[in-house]
């Protein structure tokens, strides 16, 4: 698969600490890419390097087949985590200004803004000052300004923070639409729910190092631990005694007239063997493999990495 962004062996050193240590990341074209990591891991440093706000001490960045250069800023749309607008400036005037800074002509920017303002139903705000807007409103304006120049690469740092669920959905569907239209989106977020929902690839950064990367589905497969959830009717004691040494009961609960148990299979045993063992004791209504959530993987990986 073709990559829009390739970062190779990026190192960024600040006076006393290393923000990025030999980080390599590849972002496939036309995908939504999750950049994950705990606070202070180095995500923002990495994003700032892509945006040419700072430069790396060593390593190289290739954007759309070319070494990163000043002209590329117009190809990138960036919504920083710490974002804001000039409070005393009018919304429309400000949007025009920011769009022109990204290289759009004034008339072009005006036409495009009109379309977006109508889509987001904020046309009446054009002449309002930013300080009169609520936080959510300002965020909408900010999102529009980020995507207005139709960037090939969109970098969104916590794009959903500050939005109510309705507007968060609106933004999410816009992100999906932009992806359909061919943009690549790098999403930096702590919201693991949205990562599972919309990201196809991720990279996990912890303590300045990349500790995990790849397609989300693949990672989830890789982190499966042979855990199954079984729904049954019958005696819980019977169920437990039926489990042989090759499995381990992790949890159990009553759900109405059914009982649920999660069981971990040891020694590469197959679910069929489990079924065989319990089927004589209880009445099985369902069995399902438990896929680890990104949140679990995240926590597990970060903890393991921090210990070592």
């Amino acid at each position, binding site marked *: 698969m073709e990559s829009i962004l390739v970062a190779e062996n990026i190192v960024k050193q*600040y*006076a006393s600490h290393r923000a990025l240590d030999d980080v390599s990341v590849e972002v496939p074209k036309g995908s939504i890419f999750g950049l994950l990591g705990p606070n202070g891991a180095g995500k923002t440093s990495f994003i*700032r390097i892509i*945006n*040419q*706000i*700072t*430069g790396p*001490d060593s390593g190289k960045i290739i954007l759309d087949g070319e070494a990163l250069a*000043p002209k590329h*800023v117009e190809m*990138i749309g*960036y*919504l*920083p985590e*710490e*974002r*804001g*607008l*000039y*409070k*005393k*400036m009018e919304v429309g005037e400000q949007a025009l*200004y*920011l769009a*022109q*800074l*990204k*290289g759009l002509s004034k008339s072009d920017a005006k036409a495009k803004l009109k379309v977006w303002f109508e889509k987001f139903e904020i046309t009446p705000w054009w002449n309002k000052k930013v300080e009169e807007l609520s936080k959510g409103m300002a965020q909408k304006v*900010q999102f529009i*300004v980020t995507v207005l120049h139709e960037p090939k690469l969109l970098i969104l740092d916590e794009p959903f923070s500050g939005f109510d669920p309705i507007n968060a959905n609106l933004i999410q569907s816009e992100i999906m639409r932009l992806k359909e239209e061919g943009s690549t989106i790098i999403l930096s977020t702590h919201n693991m729910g949205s990562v599972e929902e919309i990201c196809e690839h991720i990279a996990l950064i912890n303590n300045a190092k990349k500790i995990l990367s790849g397609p989300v589905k693949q990672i989830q497969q890789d982190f499966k631990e042979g855990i199954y959830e079984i729904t049954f009717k019958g005696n819980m004691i019977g169920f437990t005694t039926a489990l042989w040494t090759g499995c381990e009961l992790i949890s159990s609960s009553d759900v109405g007239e059914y009982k649920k148990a999660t069981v971990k299979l040891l020694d590469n045993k197959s679910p069929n063997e489990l079924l065989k063992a319990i089927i004589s004791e209880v009445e099985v209504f369902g069995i399902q493999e438990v896929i680890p959530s990104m949140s679990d993987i995240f926590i597990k990986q970060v903890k393991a990495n921090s210990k070592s």
Partner: protein
Amino acid sequence: MSKVSLIIQREYLVRVKKKSFLIMSLVGPILIAALMIVPAWLATREEDSQKVEVIDESGLFINKLKNTENIDFEHTFRSLTEAHEDLNNNGDYTAVLHIPKVIVTLPETAQLFYKDKPKGSSIRYMEGQIAKTIENKKLEDLYSLSLDQISGLRPRVKIVSNKLNDSGESEESADELATGVGLVLAMFIYFFIFLFGVQVMRGVIEEKTNRIVEVIISSVKPFQLMMGKIIGIALVALTQVALWIGLSSAIVGITKTVFSEKFDKVQTEQVQQLEEFNPALKENQQKQNSNPMDEVMFQLSLINFPVVIGCFVFFFIGGYLLYGSLFAAIGSAVDNETDTQQFMMPVTIPLIIGIVIAQVAMENPDGSVAFWASIIPFTSPIVMMVRVPFGVAEWEIALSMVLLIATFIGSTMMAGKIYRTGILMYGKKINFKEIGKWLFFKG
């Protein structure tokens, strides 16, 4: 349009559209005009015509006290009591001047009685007239000199100051007026550097606290943003200056035509009063030319205005750029305006030293303190302005300019490095050591 010019445009328009700019632009010229017009206007209002009854017991002063436009002397031979009564009943006279017999030996014994106090200058005029009459009388008595001979005795001295230029030619130099012009221009530079330097700092802090800065520097280089802001605000400053000069001369001009007669009269009167305080001035004025305005014009003609104005514009812009970049660096290093105090100190102290030395330079424009302060870039924009109207050697001005340019290029680059790191730094207590480290971070 290039990105820097977009930034300049925004910085400029945002400030020029502000109400406070409009108010400043209107109030400033009104204040300046008021400073020029009000004293004149007040003087016309307080025109004080005195009809003075002179009771001259010595008999020496008959026809010796000269009337002026406002003061009429009239000799009567009434008793003092009669005159007092008359004054009390609001009679013909506004004041009674009593000159006793012993006036020649005891000149402090003359007395003036009045109900409404005459102007101080009117009283001093009377004193002058009496003194002159006594002096003439004594000279006449002791040396039997005629009045003509006596007036011939009074030497009219004026020192014409001449400055030798580098080629050894002497030029008449403008002294009193040069001092005034230089100091006013220097003060102007001082205030504007402060006023607009702080605006640069506020602008940077605003962008930082609004958190818009990261959005912008993903489109432009931090250095471009900083320079755009500094230049934009410089244009605001120049607009303000132009408006002030234009509007205040318009106001003064209009007032002058409307009240033209009064105004001219008052001006001559003011000069006359000045002369009474300072007899020497009067003497040389009389000798040089009859109209005091001509003397002012003559002094003005001695100042090399193209050079003065050229220098003013240069040092104004140069000084502003030098300090503006430092103010921008301060703004980038802090999270809010209250934290700026400790960093402001090293920037404001040279400015204040500059204005202090300016006052020394006013007295002694070619002294070594004035010389060095007008060469060293941090004080030169202020101190050089004081010296320029007196005439300064070309090489000195050139050296000062070159150093100023070199320093502001250096300071802008340094400020750019601090700025680049500072604007993205939040919630950290910053000290000078920390800022020092930023200078060496790689871009």
